[in-house]
């Protein structure tokens, strides 16, 4: 009589004991109690690998933020002449790259704001609604405050990246982009 695990009910079709069976039979047992049983070694292995994955993820985030800080500031670029845009009007321009649309708004005679046009939710372009004092994203009914770029309504949670502006000699220039998390 071969020795058999007393908790093991199901006998493999060839009738041989558990130790002589292929590995997959131990990994996928037919008996319910054995199926629910988790060995301490397997549990420890799972915990260790999962925490390693978390640690690697944290390191990755750290490296990314370090690299972002090291990146050179984008070049200063002229957007428009001051008289081209009247109070309450806006203009779409590309900044910092060629296909990265941003929006410039003239709030009043001396106040200008510019934001990246990508909604912080799912990157749809936001539409300035100057009369309502907000930037509107039509994809999911998101809204941002026109003066600060902070989210007001809808799914977005992070403010729009603000573009630093500089006014010299009757012209307005974009001079850097300010990523914000809150």
């Amino acid at each position, binding site marked *: 009589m071969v020795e058999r695990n007393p908790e093991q*009910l*199901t006998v493999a*079709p060839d009738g041989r004991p558990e130790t002589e069976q292929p590995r997959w039979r131990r990994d*996928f047992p*037919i*008996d*319910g109690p054995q199926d629910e049983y988790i060995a301490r070694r397997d549990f420890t292995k799972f915990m260790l690998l999962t925490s390693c994955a978390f640690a690697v993820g944290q390191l990755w985030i750290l490296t990314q933020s370090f690299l972002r800080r090291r990146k050179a500031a984008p070049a200063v670029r002229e957007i428009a002449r001051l008289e081209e845009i009247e109070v309450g009007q806006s203009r779409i321009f590309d900044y910092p790259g060629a296909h990265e649309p941003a929006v410039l708004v003239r709030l009043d005679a001396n106040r200008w704001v510019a934001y990246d046009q990508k909604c912080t939710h799912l990157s749809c372009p936001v539409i300035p609604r100057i009369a309502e004092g907000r930037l509107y994203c039509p994809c999911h009914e998101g809204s941002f405050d026109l003066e600060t770029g902070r989210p007001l309504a809808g799914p977005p949670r992070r403010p729009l990246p603000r573009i630093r502006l500089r006014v010299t000699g009757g012209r307005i220039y974009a001079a850097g982009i300010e990523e914000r998390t809150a």
Partner: protein
Amino acid sequence: MVSPLAMEFFVDPGRCIGCQACVQACSECDTHKGQSMIQLDYLDRASSTQTVPVVCMHCDSPTCAEVCPADAIKKTADGVVQTARKPRCIACNNCVIACPFGVPKMNTRMNLMMKCDMCYDRTSVGNKPMCASVCPSQALFYGTRDEIDKLRPQSRPINTFQFGKQTITTKVNMMVPKTSRVEQLDVTETMPRAQRDDAEIDPIMMNLRLE
């Protein structure tokens, strides 16, 4: 929970009167989601009234679980093979095709294999399965060996079956007459003759083939 080990299931097809009470009662069981898991087979309807109630035999080495690619069919500690686990079952029908007794049923609406689980909610607390509690002729009997010995002095239970080259031992017992010397039952005996490998070719079928 472990069902009392002294309690066993005995199927005596010779006593079945084909009343379908078990079929109705089965769907009332709380673990069956309103589905009937029992089926009543007619052996040879043209010439006989004999019927056979088919419940899961709860094999020692369940073929349904052996063929399951999704690891969904599990046996409890007391040897009862359960319905496929819903989060795992992929509705592939392997078990339905592989079972020597034809027990598992595919519920296509739920994408789940469901089968007789010996009314696990009842038997695990010591009650009889629904079918055995309603069977008027006791063709389906749930009780101890002593009880069945007293009630059926001319029969004895056997639990070994042959299906082609596969020998199957089961938790559920089948009653055979004490006078017969049979030690194991051939499952294919209950199949229509034309489906069996060793079936003689029917002369009428032969003529049809020749035409």
